[in-house]
């Protein structure tokens, strides 16, 4: 018998012990996953016409149920599934945020009365764009109801991603989160070539980056003999030598995670995907992926690599500064509003990174607040974009927004609110968020990073305010788009995000209290 077989044989001799799993603590994940499986069955067995209402009930019901369990779990602080899943304060906070944003995203995706042709998705994603088949499907009112299982699977992946306490679970969750999003990005009803192109780019670059993540995980496993974040951390403090394995491992792992948060220089996919994807999906993805990816990044940095902070901090300083500057500067030159918001989201990722590199409990709390505030504002922004339309669909070119403030004052006012919040003007959630991350950075001695951040904020304020000026201080032209009155779905999502943007700006204390109680990651 070869030594390899001998060692495997020896391993199987050890008695099997039941893994201890606290099923209630992971109930939100199980509820969403179960709902996703049921929703695939609905796709299989419910006739065409009845699918949409059934799917809506499943999606809304399961998200609300998962949210209820998450709220009931507050104060929980445990590691379950043999150390694979950590349910602690930050996890629960991010679960809550992801579920609420997921619900708002589902409402946007359910909207059917904005576009006269139907919802935001192609009637059959497989039909050739512009073909007779496609026109026939549109005429008969077909809907691609597979978007609902995709939404649920993506949301499940995100919940696992922020809670995963070892690199294997994290990798699987990364893929469960990403794969449905790649497909959703390619399913737009209008401008399908752009949409398919976005899906291809998102997929190829996403797969490329997840391969980097995996190889980084392999290096760290080679160093420590375990994929558990805690075990890696213990080995890092106990064992010296083999520094190259650790350095390569951390660097590759960071590439994978920074790709998902869209940090420079791993941001190239963002503008293309944000512009090409159906707008409700862009809103959902922009808000939730940011939370999920930063959640995982924070956990890896704080739990696993905390002892090496002197090694990774300089790298992240540079990336944070570059991300803020490149995002803000390039956004100025954009003429398409979705593309502009994509670069704005890159700049915002830089601001959040300022909180991340503070590497203190205060930095963690400020990054969490920023993420929640940013997510609500973002989904609201994209909700407005779905409503501003002309004959060919959404009017995303900035010139078509000229004079919108005179044509539709209410919607323009709400959009201005979101722009001001993204720019970080006082009395909006964006200001509290930015103040928090900058304060945390100064406390941990990164004053120069804050200076870069303030400069980037000023540059960014330019293009946010430019949209407001365009809407209010120029006259409507014949080209100016008009605002379509949406149904209750979009109205609820838009109202909720606008209310949260103001509420977190004027009375931020309640969320700050929740975040303080949430504390730090469990080890």
């Amino acid at each position, binding site marked *: 018998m070869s030594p390899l077989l001998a060692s*495997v044989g020896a391993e199987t001799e050890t008695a099997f012990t039941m893994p201890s799993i606290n099923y209630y603590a992971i109930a939100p994940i199980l509820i969403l996953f179960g709902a996703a499986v049921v929703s695939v069955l609905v796709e299989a067995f419910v006739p065409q016409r009845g699918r949409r209402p059934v799917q809506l009930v499943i999606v809304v019901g399961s998200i609300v149920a998962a949210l209820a369990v998450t709220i009931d779990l507050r104060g929980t602080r445990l590691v379950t599934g043999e150390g694979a899943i950590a349910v602690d304060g930050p996890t629960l906070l991010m679960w809550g945020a992801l579920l609420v944003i997921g619900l708002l995203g589902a409402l946007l995706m359910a909207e059917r009365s904005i576009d006269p042709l139907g919802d935001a998705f192609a009637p059959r994603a497989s039909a050739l764009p512009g073909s007779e088949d496609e026109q026939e499907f549109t005429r008969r009112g077909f809907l691609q109801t597979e978007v609902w299982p995709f939404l649920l699977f993506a949301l499940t992946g995100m919940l696992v991603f922020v809670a995963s306490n070892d690199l294997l679970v994290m990798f699987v969750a990364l893929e469960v989160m990403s*794969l449905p999003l790649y497909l959703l990005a390619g399913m737009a009803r209008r401008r399908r*070539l752009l949409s398919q192109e976005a899906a*291809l780019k998102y997929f*190829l670059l996403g797969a*490329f980056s997840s391969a980097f993540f995996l190889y980084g995980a392999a290096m760290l496993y080679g160093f420590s003999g375990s994929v558990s974040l805690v075990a890696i951390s213990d080995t890092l403090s106990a064992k010296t030598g083999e520094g190259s394995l650790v350095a390569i491992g951390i660097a590759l792992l960071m590439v994978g995670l920074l790709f998902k948060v869209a940090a420079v220089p791993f941001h190239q996919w963002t503008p293309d995907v944000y512009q090409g994807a159906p707008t409700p999906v862009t809103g959902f993805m922009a808000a939730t992926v940011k939370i999920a990816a930063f959640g995982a990044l924070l956990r890896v940095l704080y739990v696993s690599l905390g002892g090496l902070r002197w090694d990774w901090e300089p790298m992240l300083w540079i990336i944070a500064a570059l991300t803020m500057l490149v995002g803000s500067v390039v956004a100025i030159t954009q003429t398409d509003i979705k593309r502009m918001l994509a670069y704005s989201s890159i700049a915002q990722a830089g601001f959040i990174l300022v909180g991340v590199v503070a590497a203190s409990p205060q930095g963690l709390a400020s990054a969490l607040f920023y993420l929640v505030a940013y997510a609500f504002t973002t989904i609201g922004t994209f909700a407005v974009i779905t409503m501003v339309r002309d004959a060919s669909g959404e009017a995303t070119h900035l010139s078509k927004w000229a004079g919108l403030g005179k044509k539709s004052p209410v919607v323009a006012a709400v959009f201005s609110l979101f722009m001001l919040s993204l720019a970080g003007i006082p009395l909006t959630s964006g200001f509290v968020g930015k103040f928090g991350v900058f304060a945390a950075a100064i406390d941990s001695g990164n004053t120069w990073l804050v200076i870069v951040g303030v400069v980037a904020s000023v540059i960014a304020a330019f293009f946010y305010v430019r949209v407001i000026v365009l809407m209010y201080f120029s006259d409507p032209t014949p080209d100016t788009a008009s605002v379509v009155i949406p149904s209750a779905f979009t109205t609820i999502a838009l109202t909720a995000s606008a209310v949260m943007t103001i509420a977190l700006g004027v009375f931020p204390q309640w969320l700050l209290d929740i975040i303080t109680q949430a504390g730090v990651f469990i080890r």
Partner: protein
Amino acid sequence: MNPSSYVVLSALLFSIGAIGVLVRRNAIVVFMSVELMLNAANLAFVSFARMNGNLDGQVVAFFVMVVAAAEVVVGLAIIVTIFRTRRSASIDEPNLLKY
């Protein structure tokens, strides 16, 4: 045989895959290069499992294989859709998303 040679081999495979993604122009070949990178990671996991004397790495390799299969399916679906629209699988041709 010394397992560390396998780690070196996996690093080589990973680099070949990464270079393939960067220089090749056919979406399917790019995608195959990504798969090569994933399998290089698998080889590293299995070799490290041997060196560390535990089975974690082998378990990871199983999961990676399944995830890679799921990725293949999603990727081929997207590439085939693009191909049917454009009659080409070149990644240079989809260039509408530029300003």
